[in-house]
């Protein structure tokens, strides 16, 4: 219907965004009827999201015309932003930003580099940045989950951790069960994505490729490649993150730093 009403492609895109935004606002109004007030927060988030993604689109447009190293620079910037977001989730963990940055850079960076070297992903800015950003974003989510889960599990099992320390165990041994459980938990979304691929959801990348005329089978296989890369990058990120965070959770004298208030 919109296509007939708005023939100009740019205006059509804006109209489509307005309709989708209105649908989201309608949900907020429904929630309001049940005395759940998210309308202000949602309106701000919608405007902010539109502005951010439009800015990214504009930057991408510029980068497409620029040199290849601009893509690497953009990905590095995304990794720093992802580490800051991830660290906010785990702000009560000492050194969370440093750990997050190292983990995300190691996880997404290594997979992007390997896949680019192997020729799985194109090194052109137009492919490298969007695909790389997916890996960085998923690594960020997995890392945030891992750190948050690690902190909450260790705090919930303080007595076990300190009993192990009091028996002469190393910090690594004393928190090992919770480092393992946080690693496992943080990978659940990535595993579920792989498991349900094509059955529960058809991801955006594949949808976009099909819409832009790529044969569906080729789009599907490329989507699998992306999801597998996301899993690999999230896995390495969590592995590095949960390894580094174990060291951050203790003082040099091997005292647990994640204890809530003292005063017994």
């Amino acid at each position, binding site marked *: 219907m919109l296509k007939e009403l708005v023939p100009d492609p740019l205006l059509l895109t804006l109209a489509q965004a307005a309709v989708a935004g209105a649908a989201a606002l309608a949900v907020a109004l429904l929630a309001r009827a049940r005395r759940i007030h998210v309308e202000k927060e949602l309106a701000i988030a919608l405007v902010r999201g539109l502005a951010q993604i439009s800015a990214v689109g504009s930057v991408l447009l510029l980068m497409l015309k620029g040199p290849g190293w601009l893509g690497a620079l953009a990905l590095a910037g995304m990794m720093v932003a992802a580490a800051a977001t991830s660290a906010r989730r785990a702000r009560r963990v000492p050194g969370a930003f440093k750990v997050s940055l190292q983990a995300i850079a190691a996880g997404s960076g290594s997979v992007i580099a390997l896949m680019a070297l192997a020729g799985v992903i194109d090194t052109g800015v137009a492919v490298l940045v969007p695909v790389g950003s997916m890996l960085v974003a998923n690594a960020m989510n997995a890392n945030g989950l891992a750190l948050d889960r690690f902190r909450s599990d260790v705090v919930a099992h303080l007595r076990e951790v300190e*009993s192990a320390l009091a*028996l002469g165990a190393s910090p690594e041994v004393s928190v090992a069960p919770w480092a393992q459980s946080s690693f496992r938990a943080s990978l659940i979304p990535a595993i579920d994505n792989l498991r349900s691929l094509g059955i529960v959801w058809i991801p955006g990348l594949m949808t976009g490729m099909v819409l832009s005329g790529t044969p569906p089978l080729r789009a599907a296989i490329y989507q699998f490649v992306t999801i597998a890369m996301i899993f690999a990058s999230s896995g390495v990120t969590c592995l590095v993150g949960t390894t580094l965070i174990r060291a951050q959770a203790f003082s040099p004298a091997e*005292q647990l730093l994640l204890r809530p208030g003292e005063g017994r």
Partner: protein
Amino acid sequence: MSPPAPVVLRAEHLGRVADGRALVDDVSFEVRQGDVLAVVGPSGAGKSSLLRLLNRLDEPTAGAVYLDGQDARALPPRELRRRVGMVMQTPALFPGTVAENLSFGPRQRGAALGDGALAALLRQVGLGGFAERGVDRLSGGEARRVAIARAVANEPSVLLMDEPTSALDDVSKREIEALVAEVVRARGLTCVVITHDLAQAARVAGRVLVMEAGRVRRIGPVEEVLRAEGTGS
């Protein structure tokens, strides 16, 4: 008259400030080999905070702890904690069997707790035949015994105990007190035990340190402290 036993554990002007609050303030004492020192005081007096400084689970912000005359900070933390064992107020046993819990400490330093030593230790704490029992099938009193045996399995020279009988009924309480006395005597351990009960302190310890608001209010032989605190018989 035999010479006094050597001082094994000494705290000198020990203090800890956390979040702007003095949890332990200028606490000094010493414990001789084979002696039991009871630390008594109301909730919030700083008893547990003091105990955690002795095996460096927390870092003192003032003063020092000496083990056999050596500054505890000069020892690697794991070595210090092996030599200064600790039984926490709530026995946090690791999932698995009693035997797995008892062998945890020795395993950390690459040693093994042999079947004979394991059986002897379990007999000593009144749990003969419990080696393969899952810790989820233990009563509260049995779990305390396992926690004590687990600390002792590490062959410490000092044993720190944080209210080892809290939340137990009177019968279990007396049994654990007798067990502590037996283990300390048989192994020649030096012991610091926290209790909020002066009567219990009199039953298990030779000396008592009374804490109040993080500071030492009184320290001395049991009878002397009981008399001064107005609870002596």
